């Protein structure tokens, strides 16, 4: 039999499973379908990389909190009474119940509803009823919530890691830091504020979302309904029409960095003339456009309106933070074939209200006209990969292409190159291969100071 299955390799005791499932040109189906691989990802990927948890504007004030998952672990993202940010395990130190059952709110204390063990927003024990019966516990830290030991905010984006040896966030971001900064710095210092987080539940593995983020090949086909509706109703040369034809001849490109990060740059096409003029019309468009023109004059209105459309960049910050248009996406794996994708909408402090209103309507556009078809394809891939006999997912587009350019901070490639996927899986493979040991027991030793 010519097809070699993973099962056969297992029988043959393949020495390097991770070398087998991730090739330079193909990925084994089990990477998307195997529950054991998924479990290992939650430790080796989400337990050792810097994981995106939320944005500072979601917890603007002392005592604010929201709940999230951290590689499947229920966590509470808090801002304590001193303003410090924590990512607490939402798990009572007593019997294990989730101490916080709300999605978000503001409080000075979490009181577990089971036996009323209570905690402040730094995770520290406040009280344990009838505590005398626990005299055998020497450590007062025994009663604290465990928490993600390293939490940092990179310019408002909150990341945490369970890995005590992870590099500082700036070093971790490596070359993607520059386009990330570009994305944040689009507004002359205006602060980004999260304004709503619609969430989509997808019956597919989380990595279909990250794979697609770097895929400049699919738009002309996956988003044909969006493109043909737009050209039928609004004429040619509208938003995203530059993905048609041989898109590799466009001025768009992808760029790939260390640590699994990459981005797609659509700006050379999208902002070649006016992105606002090419935008599919959103509700209120003409009214607010006229308002801005009368208030600020033609020139300034034109500049401002360009800020009501997307950033023209798709960033993948390994493993679970994506920036797409003006939205922040958090990829939240739930099971091997179940994922939540959080779409944080953003407005910008100091921009005119009219622009922020238009931004809300613009950010509704792609999820409803485009993302829905992406999800349909992710779910169809998940179903297709259920076939055991056809084992490989191709990621060989423009493999070893002479068009790749090694630049100082990364490799630049054609916009349809799968170099993005190859970059992601090289880091994925490295982490899956490693032996990760997460030990937070020191958090329970000694006394609360």
């Amino acid at each position, binding site marked *: 039999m010519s097809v070699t299955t993973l099962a056969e390799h297992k029988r043959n005791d393949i020495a390097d499973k991770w070398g087998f499932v991730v090739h330079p040109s193909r990925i084994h189906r089990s990477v998307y379908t195997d529950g054991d691989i998924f479990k290992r990802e939650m430790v080796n990927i989400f337990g050792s990389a810097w994981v995106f948890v939320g944005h500072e504007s979601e917890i603007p004030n002392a005592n604010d909190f929201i709940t999230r998952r951290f590689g499947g672990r229920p966590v509470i993202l808090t801002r304590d009474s001193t303003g410090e940010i924590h990512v607490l395990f939402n798990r009572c130190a007593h019997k294990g119940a989730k101490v916080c059952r709300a*999605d978000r709110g503001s409080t000075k204390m979490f009181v577990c509803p089971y036996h009323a063990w209570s905690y402040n927003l730094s995770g520290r024990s406040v009280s344990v009823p009838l505590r005398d019966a626990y005299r055998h516990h020497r450590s007062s830290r025994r009663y604290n919530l465990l928490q993600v030991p390293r939490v940092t905010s990179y310019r408002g984006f909150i990341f945490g890691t369970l890995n005590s040896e992870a590099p500082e966030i700036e070093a971790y971001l490596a070359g993607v830091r520059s386009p990330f900064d570009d994305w944040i710095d689009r507004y002359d210092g205006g602060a980004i504020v999260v*304004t*709503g*987080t*619609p*969430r*989509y*539940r997808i*019956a597919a593995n989380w990595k279909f979302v990250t794979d697609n983020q770097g895929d400049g090949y699919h738009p002309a086909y*996956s988003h*044909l*309904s*969006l493109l*043909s*509706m737009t050209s*039928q*109703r*609004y*004429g040619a040369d509208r938003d995203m029409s530059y993905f048609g034809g041989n898109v590799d001849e466009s001025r768009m490109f992808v760029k790939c960095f260390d640590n699994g990060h990459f981005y797609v740059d659509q700006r050379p096409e999208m902002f070649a003339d006016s992105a606002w003029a090419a935008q*599919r*019309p*959103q*509700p*209120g*468009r*003409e*009214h*607010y456009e*006229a308002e801005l023109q009368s208030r600020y004059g033609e020139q300034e209105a034109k500049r401002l309106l360009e800020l009501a459309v997307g950033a023209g960049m798709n960033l993948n910050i390994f493993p679970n933070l994506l920036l797409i248009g003006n939205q922040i996406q958090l990829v939240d794996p739930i099971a091997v074939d179940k994922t*939540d994708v959080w*779409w944080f*909408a953003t*407005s910008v402090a100091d921009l005119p*209200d009219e622009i*922020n*209103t238009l931004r*809300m*309507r613009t*950010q*509704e556009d792609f999820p*409803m*006209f485009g993302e*829905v*078809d992406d*999800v*349909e*394809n992710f779910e169809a891939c998940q179903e297709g990969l259920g076939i055991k006999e056809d084992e490989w997912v191709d990621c060989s587009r423009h493999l070893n292409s002479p068009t790749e350019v090694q630049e100082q901070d990364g490799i630049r490639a054609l916009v349809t190159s799968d170099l993005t996927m190859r970059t992601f899986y090289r880091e994925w493979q490295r982490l899956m291969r490693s032996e990760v040991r997460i030990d937070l027991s020191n958090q329970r030793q000694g006394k609360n100071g």
Partner: protein
Amino acid sequence: MSASASKKRHLLGEHPGPSTYVDDALYDRLLKISAQWSEAGLAVPASQAATVTALLNQECRLLDGGRFEEWLNLFVEHCIYWIPSDVVPQDPRREITWELQDRRRLEDRVARIRTGHAFSQIPPTRTRHCLSNIEIWAVGADELRVRTNLTIHTYRKGKQQTLPCMGGYVLQRQAEDDWLIELKQINLIDADQAQGNISFFL
């Protein structure tokens, strides 16, 4: 069937005109209406209720039949279709929604499905829109509010699901006993939670 709805007043064509009616006054009105769904006014007379119920049943039937162009004809020209993304609907100027459509973008949604390439709706989601707990009251002479429990049963790709919603309608008088929909507001029971494929019309 409503007299005005029978007129084919709008074809999904090229170059739809400008849309200028979504302004601050309209957003203020949406917020005010949204806050008023929790209290019903004085019920309209039975004969008027029958007319309104017939209109809304027709709306459900057209949606369930995939007759979206005809469905659009049940709305006034300056209409709004709104699905908030929070259980307490926030100001759509400050918070993104699941959908906030004016007529033009509602037509875009229909036109997308009609391209034959809208993969999220191939095959289409089969739906049964069910209305119950209908309360109808008048606001002035030419406006009616209709608060309903809207339950949408769906089937797609081997899976059935139920979407329980508050369906709020604002109707505008066109003639003596002839009404069209100005606003359809859909408050999903789990608007603040993850949604699956909701790329059909709720």
